[in-house]
């Protein structure tokens, strides 16, 4: 055997170093924190709501942008494929055909919505934004949710801000313009037959409505989805404060909570 000469050893040594250096791949740099967006709102949510003709379904054709802070999402699965945003003037629900929306649109996130191409319509008098409309049954046109691949086109996220405080309202202040607003009812309680009951039917995944009575008069329905993570929790028997998103179905006034922490009903019931 010929003893390998120095030069050959050298070549071999270089080879080893070469492969060791390149064989291990470097880690990817983390991208810098999100810098926000320069996008500006061109219209308020109140103006958007005002532009709607009751019973109609409109397609947006202008390059208008609204902005708002997310006040409800699917984090507890009580809102299904929907997020709710609110600015200082009003609020609106946006129907989005995707799961895990809370990841991208957590509570308190400011988002900008490019309206061009979206549709606005009612579902049981509840005004919503959607991606398209289905007129296959002309008597009951249906608003369709925004498809998941278009989220990045329609919605631009901004910075995380404080979730707006709920507006404290009385029953008779609840009108259609208040839809989707984060509200708070004081001195309210569940009617006796609806206390100590599960919020919803988790076993059969059925939505349940419980009646909330305001001491000052009037009642709204607490609607909870059977898919909600807190569906099996029991409704409180006391009197107190309840927060939630105000929704309607026809003439029925409803309240949808984000979590059981929205309900603080421990006081004595009203007479």
């Amino acid at each position: 055997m010929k003893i390998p000469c120095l030069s050959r050893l050298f070549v071999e040594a270089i080879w080893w170093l070469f492969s060791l250096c390149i064989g291990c791949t470097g880690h990817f740099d983390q991208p810098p924190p999100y810098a926000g967006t320069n996008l500006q709102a061109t219209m308020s949510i109140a103006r958007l709501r005002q532009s709607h003709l009751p019973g109609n379904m409109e397609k947006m054709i202008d390059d208008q942008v609204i902005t708002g802070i997310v006040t409800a999402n699917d984090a507890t699965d009580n809102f299904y494929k929907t997020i709710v945003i609110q600015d200082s003037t009003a609020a609106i629900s946006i129907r989005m055909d995707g799961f895990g929306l809370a990841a991208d649109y957590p509570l308190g996130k400011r988002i900008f919505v490019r309206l061009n191409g979206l549709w606005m319509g009612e579902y049981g008098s509840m005004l919503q934004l959607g991606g398209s409309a289905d007129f296959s049954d002309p008597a009951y046109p249906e608003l369709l949710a925004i498809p998941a691949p278009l989220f990045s086109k329609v919605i631009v996220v901004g910075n995380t801000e404080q979730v707006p405080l709920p507006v404290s309202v009385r029953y008779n202040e609840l009108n259609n313009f208040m839809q989707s607003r984060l509200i708070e009812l004081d001195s309210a309680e569940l009617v006796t037959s609806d206390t100590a009951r599960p919020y919803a039917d988790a076993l059969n995944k059925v939505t349940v409505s419980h009646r909330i009575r305001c001491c000052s008069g009037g009642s709204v329905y607490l609607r909870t989805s059977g898919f909600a993570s807190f569906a099996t929790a029991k409704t409180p028997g006391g009197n107190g404060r309840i927060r939630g998103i105000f929704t309607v179905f026809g003439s029925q006034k409803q309240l949808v909570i984000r979590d059981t922490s929205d309900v603080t009903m421990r006081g004595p019931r009203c007479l």
Partner: protein
Amino acid sequence: MLSEAVATVVILAVFVIPHTLFKMRNILLLLHFLLRSLLMIHAQSPAVARQIKNQFADSVSLIQLLRSGTDIDFAEPGSGAEEGNAASQLVPSVLHSGKDLFATTASFHFNARRFRIKGLDPHWFQVQMNGVPMNQLHNGLAVWSSWGGLNEVMTNSTTIIGWQQNEYGFGGPGSFTSFDLKASHLRPQTTVTAAFSNRTYRYRLAYTTVASMNARGWAYAFSITYRTGTDMVQPGTFMHTPAYFFSVDKKMGEHLFSITLLGAMLNSSRTVAVTKEAVAISGSTQYNPGWGYQNGEKRNANTQQLHTPQLLLSHAFTAMDATQISTTLAYSAGERAVSGLDWYKASDPRPDYYRYWPGFQQDSRLQSQVREWYAEDPLQLQINWNRLYEVNRNNPEIIRDADGVAGKRAAGLRSRYILQDRVMQNKSLVLGSRLNQPLTSRLTMMAAVTGQWQRVRYFKRVKDLLGGDFFVDWNQFAEDQLIHAAALQNDLNRPNRILKTGDAYGYDYAMNLLQYNAAVQFSYTGNRLDLFGAIELSGSAHYRTGYMRNGVFPMNSFGRSATDRFGTGSAKAGVTYKINGRKYLFLNLGWKQRPPFTDDYYVSPQTRDSRVQEIQMERLTGMEMGYILNAPQLKIRATVYMTRIKNGMNRMSFYHDGYRNLVNYALWNIHQLHMGIEAAAEFPLSLRMRINMALALGRYVYTNRPFYSVSIDNEDYATEQGLVYWKNFPVPGTPQQAFSTGCTIQLQERLSLSVTGNYMAAYWVSFNPIRRTYDALRQLPQNQDPGIVGHPEKLPDVFVADLSAAWSVMLNRSRAGKYRYLQWFLSIGNVLNQPFISGGYEQLRFDLANADTGKFPSKYYYSAGVNYLLMLRYKL
């Protein structure tokens, strides 16, 4: 240099014949062609024939050379050993040269469409190194990529096709490849190689020294190679793979001791199949959804890292009477990590998720909007890494009772998206010993014993938290359908475990496998008849060890499972009738049984130790008969074979977002019948031209209705079970028919050119068994053709032309009197740049409720178009 007539023949042979042959469904035409060629050659004068023989490089070796990168000596004359000695009574036996003409063509030219010899599953193709098996016990596969790139030294192998007598081991119906990696058995060389390609790498560099045995009995071999490249044919792909090989031999009298260490540190991207819709929307057959930009760099989520070094300690004893005893102890330890995205309560981050395609939208307005959006911003079709980081950075959470410690709180950014590694850590120890003993001048015996121990540990590992602080070891699928609060724990022994980069999570278990084999073969060489017979006995034992107590299956996930033991027996025998020293007829019969693979019979090993209702041992009976002609001017091997497989098993797992869970399909009692013809021929057309042909005409079908059961990872019961109605369905995943004609032209003494036309037909995409069940068709709307759901999908036949050239230049003569050569090899695949689908599968998800095949359409792998490899080798 070439007459026009010859050129015409070449064009005919290479392009027209394969094209038309199958369309006319006329095998006779091929036979006719072969006969004509035979007649033509026999008409040539013996003198010319001898000249031809000496002029030509064996075209097999050229192909092999291009495939593997070995040298060939262009001036090497054909060996004259087979020039029959008519005076002798004893007719010489068939020589197995190590290069089977058919196998070489099949692996080099037919792999454009994933051709498998005889249509058999990959576990029927055995690999040995220095006499010990390299096939893994849990799935039967040999992991070729764990020594990938060591082309210069991995060429010393012998491949035996089918049931033939085999001096290395029992063998089987597929092929049996035996590598001899002892330094003193490798071809002595000192070479530097540089290669440029667009296939799986861009550059390859290699340095190899093999020193032959010196006077003191030492020999060594050393090779180091590096393959690297990014953005090959598909964007976002990469490969950075060093590989090493080291071997030392010491000869002491009749004993040869050898140590070999080899391995490749594979680090590369993985290819994913895509739907036709994805190709249409992205506008490219090379669309790769696996990557996205991160800080301006393409980052691929689908990668694999593999490093399993092999250490082989061998001893060989060769006595004067030709008795050989060789023993090898092989130890291997390493891991394979396959990365991918994992997520918790967030939207699917993979851009090719079916809900993101326009076709998912029912509304035509939305369809066109999605289509326009993708056209406007094609990056939407790639992973948005920035978004994943952004989501993780916006998710502060507090986990109570963290790590199972009451009152401990973990606060920070909880990642919703992570990059995971699915890890397989492998340890194996194999001891094999073989005796080759001539008993009389005519009778020889081969006896081999092997013991194989293997332990594979499977777990998921956090590879990158993508901007978050931690991940929690919870089972989100169980959480969605919470049976009880503890069900969400992946590991009840360590509940609420906080995970950092590098931590194991999800599942963690090992398969412990032991197998021992004993085989004996007797071969008798008669005057006119050669006979052999062999039997093999094997025993194996498998058990699972769980390292996590799964919250859904607390009783049968942790600890050691019961042991499954299997005993199998196999036998084969064959006879060769030697017409003369060049012509042979042979008939071989084989019967083989194998223990089931744990990959197939554990229902869901990730979560529990349940097995399928009936564990079966696959049984295979095979017959092959054929004709071999080994004349200097003409080489033919033609085989007719039939293989019947019974009691096959299979398990398939996939994520089902209807059940929102991992779903496992278990199949058993699968019967198959594979029959067909394999033929290869090689002959010269003129002094400077040689034709070689290979033909595979197969018919591979399922012959019964196997049982299936569907179980969900988080439920202990089978949700569906019954019969799969696929009797007489073709076996998918390989072309059942293939034909290749090649022509090698010797332009100068050291320059040759080769053109090959390959036709591959009868390829069916792998199918989803669930679509062939009563449950699937029950939902079918009235008056809809059940064939739409049930019929297997056949891909169009393809014709691929390959071109290659080899050129050797003598540079100078060293002081020692040795010549230095620079060798050039060029191989161009698919020269006509035909886009075609190289393979595919039906998605395992199926819209049972509507019996709709369009919702989860088939996915395909697309060929790369023209591909090339240019290799330069400098021989010192």
